[in-house]
């Protein structure tokens, strides 16, 4: 419960943050624009697109396996993101924490075995 003014005051750090963000993003670009030497050629100005040609039809088909690998990556990346704080707080949780994490990992492993067996990892 706050009075109206006090309520807005809570948002002051956000305003400050937006100001700093604007400063940090605008100043280097402006400085580079004003001060840097320009010497551009085709390869340097083209966008970098991990392995694809940047100038082609956007409706190009790409292999579904790229997508599958990306999904797998995200799942196991998240697993790590859960495991780290769990490991840090492990002492306070005792058996309950261990069993919960084992359940979580076993669910992931079942999913992984399913994907493996279905041939999602075969690159042929």
């Amino acid at each position, binding site marked *: *419960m*706050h*009075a*109206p003014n006090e*309520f807005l005051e809570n948002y002051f750090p956000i305003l400050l943050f937006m100001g700093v963000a604007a400063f940090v993003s605008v100043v280097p670009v402006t400085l580079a624009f004003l001060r840097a030497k320009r010497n551009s050629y085709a390869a340097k100005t083209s966008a970098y697109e991990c392995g694809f040609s940047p100038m082609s039809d956007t409706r190009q088909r790409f292999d579904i396996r790229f997508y599958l690998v990306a999904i797998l990556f995200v799942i196991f990346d998240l697993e790590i993101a859960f495991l780290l704080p769990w490991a840090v707080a492990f002492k306070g949780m005792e058996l309950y924490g261990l069993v919960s994490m084992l359940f979580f990992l076993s*669910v992931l492993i*079942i999913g992984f075995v*399913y994907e493996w*067996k*279905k041939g999602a990892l075969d690159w042929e």
Partner: protein
Amino acid sequence: MGAPIFAEVSFVIVAFVYLFLSFVRDQKRIAQLLSYITLGILVSLFLYFIGDLERFIGNIGGFFNVTKLVMSSKLLILFVSIVLLSLVGGTFFWKDYLFARAEFFVIFLFMLAGSFLMIEAFDFLSLYLAMELQALSLYVLLAFKKDDPAAIEAAVKYFVLSSVASGVFLYGVSFIYGVVGDTNFLLVYEALNSILSVEGSEKTIIYIGMALVLSGLVFKISLVPFHMWPPDIYQGAPIWVVTLLATVSKIVGVTVIINLLTGPFKALSDQWELFFLVLGLLSIAIGSLSALAQNNLLRFLGFSTIAHMGFISLSMAGGDYMGLEKAYVYLIIYVVMILGFFSLLMEGKYRLKYIGKKLENLDDFAGFSKIAPGMSFMLALFLFSLAGIPPLAGFFAKLYVVIVLVRENLTVYAVLALLFSILGAFYYLRLIKFMYFDEPKDKNFTCLEFDFKTFIFFRVPSLLCMLFIIFYAIWPNRLINFVTFIFE
């Protein structure tokens, strides 16, 4: 410990076992086997639950809370799922192997687990997680027919709209969390109660939060500003999935909304009564008016769903407990009607497909009473009930809503709702006119013969639903007393 959610846990564990059966070569036989096993699990759960409703009541860690209302919704969902599995068996019998894969049952069980967790959620976070589990399974089920452009279009539409709706829901939760500092229903209820008794500027934020949360949920039951999806999706998606969306999804949506209204938002009843009053009237108006112009049967059912959900919403607008009770009665009657109607429709589709005809547009029903007299009679009964013709259950459902509105001094809204539903009666009666008063397009038609297996898979569920809507008028108090009992 843990007993209140043992059904959900067993669904998930069974689903993991099923996952490994998807490696077997002969998926058709596996799917048939799994449909029987799943049916057995659901029937035994149903019998176990119906024995003693109050046995499973309890709270789990402040995240889930099982009440009598939750148990009765679970029973309703189990009944619907048993019928749905019987319909799946029917599709296998008619050599439609769209769902003949072990993964289908895995996803179906996940959908059930998500629905159960959603209705018993007692915290905005667990509600959101369960909602996503259910929605993800629904996206996959909608996209099951992956070589049909219409089905894919329906799936993508549902995916995009549902994601936006859950985003809106989360946004609303963030407002409430910002004011209250917690997401538990009980704590939110207590905090809102004390905040509302003090004068201050945060009331507006609470109202915005509540409106956003309810908007995200109202999407699931397709009330008017969020009503664009049912017609398109009903038309495009496989009919079995449409049946699922029209029944389970609606039960879950209405139960969750009732949970919220009697729980965290109880102190805000003046605000949400207005919310549901406006949405309900608009839904009845737009649903009835748009259905008039439709020629595709499923599309027309999509619009009729909107109108029916409008009645539930109007009933919620009418007062704290009586209105919500009557909304729940309406929900039960509606689900039984639409379930019986859809099982008949699936039977008709498969049987006519077998003799080389289709059942898609309203005029495909021309002379249907001569081709299939029994089926047309039952369809006509369900249509009369949906339109609200007196001796059938649909009439009583509407009657209770009107009584609630009149008691709450909202007579104008009751009159308007009735006027629109008279308009709505036209399109139900038009289908009956096609069936009974028109000649078949094809002059040398043949009458459909009795088929025992089709009878078991499709007709028995629809007969059960029909018995309910006919005999409801004799013992109306049974259901009313039951609903009063679960709401007390």
